[in-house]
């Protein structure tokens, strides 16, 4: 064991810092740091910058044009990026679909879709959940019926994150009704411009449009859009979920959140002294830092155990739970740090172009909305209850 960075790792860290310092546009980092809403164009701009630098897919295996970054390199990139205020990469194409295509897609699919993911031609969204199938994903009903060289799709997906920006959706569909539900699922790629696809917004509890319903009425999809084999989709679906969860610890985000919270706590006063000096507040903050320090190492240990390009095992469920709960507790403590100024919320102030004076301190407006919005993290990506079921079943044999 050696907790010191090697000289290569130190060089790597310098390289990454140089990249963020030079290439991350001030306009983007300012938005991220002040928690303004990012537009579609913002996400695309950052995506392109990362791609130009070869960092967008650096975690992909070298065989597919990546750099096969290991867990330490990923951690450095994540932590430095968050510290600089880099936007989060929209994960559906580059972190979720791509690994599935590399492992199970045809060569033709790989050659067609992977470059389009990288150059931003396609914005992917995730068509897993249905109104009746959330935690019990395998019970999904949306049907795909083979007719000649097409599948005809009917049904509904829901909670589709950023579906309003996407032009492609990967869907789990039912291609057989016999046997176990898991055995009749297929994984299929759908161009959202196909007639019969309709996207309807769902507004979240704090007023944002982040997720959607996607309806499918007699949507004709060419058979070559099927990934892997018919009725084998469940295997691919789980492989994708493991990749989805692998970035989920959110170490960089948590570290940046704590820095932001400390900044607020130095500014807020209680009994005439900075909140940061308040013993109760400090104790709560210290507990979060203790958990985070351990989690950063847990994250690297678990990610290091995964082979190049392969997803981590069921251990990743521990990261999902710890990572989401930890960031939720940072959101919670940040809310409390504001005192009465946690209450005002002017939604328009989250958009660029809002020029009125802030209400209260300039950091206050997004905090409570963020706290409520982040309740989603323990629900999506497989709820934390489902993660506990996985840990107790798969890791402990209970």
């Amino acid at each position, binding site marked *: 064991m050696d907790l010191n960075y090697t000289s290569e790792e130190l060089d790597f860290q310098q390289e990454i810092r140089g990249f963020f310092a030079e290439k991350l546009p001030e306009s983007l980092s300012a938005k991220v740091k002040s928690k303004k809403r990012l537009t579609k164009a913002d996400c695309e701009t950052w995506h392109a910058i990362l791609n130009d630098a070869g960092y967008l897919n650096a975690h992909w295996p070298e065989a597919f044009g990546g750099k096969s970054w290991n867990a330490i390199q990923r951690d450095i990139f994540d932590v430095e990026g968050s510290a600089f205020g880099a936007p989060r990469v929209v994960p559906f194409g580059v972190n979720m679909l791509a690994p599935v295509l590399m492992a199970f897609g045809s060569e033709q699919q790989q050659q067609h879709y992977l470059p389009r993911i990288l150059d931003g031609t396609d914005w992917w969204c995730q068509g897993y*959940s249905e109104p*009746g*199938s*959330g*935690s*019990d994903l395998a*019970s999904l009903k949306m049907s795909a019926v083979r007719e000649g060289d097409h599948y005809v799709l009917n049904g509904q997906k*829901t*909670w589709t994150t950023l579906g309003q920006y996407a032009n492609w959706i990967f869907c789990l569909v039912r291609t057989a009704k016999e046997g176990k539900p898991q055995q009749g699922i297929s994984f299929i790629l759908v161009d959202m411009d196909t007639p019969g696809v309709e996207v309807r917004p*769902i*507004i*979240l*509890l*704090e*007023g944002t449009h982040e997720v959607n319903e996607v309806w499918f009425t007699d949507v004709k999809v060419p058979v070559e859009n099927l990934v892997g084999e018919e009725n084998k989709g469940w295997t691919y679906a789980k492989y994708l979920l493991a990749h989805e969860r692998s970035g989920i610890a959110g170490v960089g985000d948590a570290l940046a959140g704590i820095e932001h919270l400390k900044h607020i706590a130095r500014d*807020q*006063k*209680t*009994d*005439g002294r900075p909140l940061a000096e*308040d013993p*109760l*507040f400090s104790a*709560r903050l210290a507990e979060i830092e203790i958990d985070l320090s351990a989690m950063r190492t847990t994250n690297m240990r678990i990610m290091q155990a995964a082979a190049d390009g392969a997803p981590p095992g069921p251990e990743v469920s521990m990261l999902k739970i710890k990572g989401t709960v930890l960031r939720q507790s940072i959101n*919670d403590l940040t*809310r*409390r740090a*504001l*005192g*009465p*100024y*946690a*209450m*005002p*919320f*002017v939604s328009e102030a989250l958009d660029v172009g809002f020029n009125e004076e802030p*209400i*209260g301190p300039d950091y206050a407006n997004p905090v*409570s*909305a963020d*706290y*409520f919005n982040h*309740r*989603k993290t*323990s*629900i*999506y990506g497989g*709820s*934390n*209850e489902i993660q*506990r*079921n996985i840990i107790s079943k798969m890791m402990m044999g209970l």
Partner: protein
Amino acid sequence: MDFNHTDERQMLADMVGRFVTDNYDIESRHHHAASDVGYSQEVWGQLAELGVIGALFDEADGGFGGTGFDIAVVFEQLGRGLVVEPFLAGLMAGTILAQDKNQQELLDALLSGQSVVALAHGEPGSRYSLSHVETSATASADGFVLNGNKAVVISGDSADHVLVSARLSGAVDDAEGLSLFIVPRDADGVHVRGYPTVDGYRAAEIALHDVHIGSDSLVGEQGNGLALLDKANAAGTLAVSAEALGAIEVAIDMTLEYLKTRKQFGVPIGKFQALQHRMADMMTEREQIRSAVINAAGHLHTDQRDWHLSCLKNLIGRSGRKIAEEAIQMHGGMAMTWEYAVGHYSKRIVMIDHLFGDEDYHLKRIMTLGSAA
């Protein structure tokens, strides 16, 4: 001891409860909240006519209630409907106006629903402190001149009058030297910036620039402001805690109903023990909160008031938040939507932590006050 309400008080609770059930579904609530003033003047008028405002005040002041239990039962029912009408502002301002017989006319207008009065006390730097007041009052030939900034004034943009705390003497945190002044909201030099709160209510930042008021604007004795504020603050703390209890009841009921009807893996999700135990804990915490409301209501006018209020408010911050978060979690994605009501209940429960001192503020106060006698 007797843990039953008197018949009259039970009737009051039932009456408010019925009004809320019959007239105040979540859609009309959102509709009222989104209107210019942030509430429905019609509903406010109806509730005033039913005597719901009057129930918050003593007979001597023109009301017919005014005990801790009256306040608690009314606000618990209001919390069940997430009622946005300006009851909290009315309770606090009214509690202060009631201390000065010269203000009876305005208090009567408030009780009848004709007038909305907001208490403008908190300031940008005061957090939860009651004595931290920078706003100044200086004596003039025919009254006073006010200068300063007031923060997060509940219902401040829809009130016709604001009750302003200001300092005639002393340093910023002194307990002495505070007085209260009643100011028409449209007086020269009063600048009101209204805005919504994240849980659907309205508040305002109020700037006072050389606001000239007559000597009859002084409410209560000069320099005795803190005592009046303390009364209003206590009533407000009890009220929002009872309101949180009402919201908690609904959030738990909705979650329970959802657990019985939502099916995954071929069974209602309520069959999963992982959820059953947490539901059981939520129910237990709800009863703990109900007991704390009873304790605080019963001690609103005793010398143990502050201890019981702080116990209650700490529990609301601590267990209330837990319940609010669990209600969302156990619903899954459904609770994250604007359309489904439970998220709005959760938002209110958590935001009540930011009124009159949060969980930690009251924990510290309990540590200072020591054990109850």
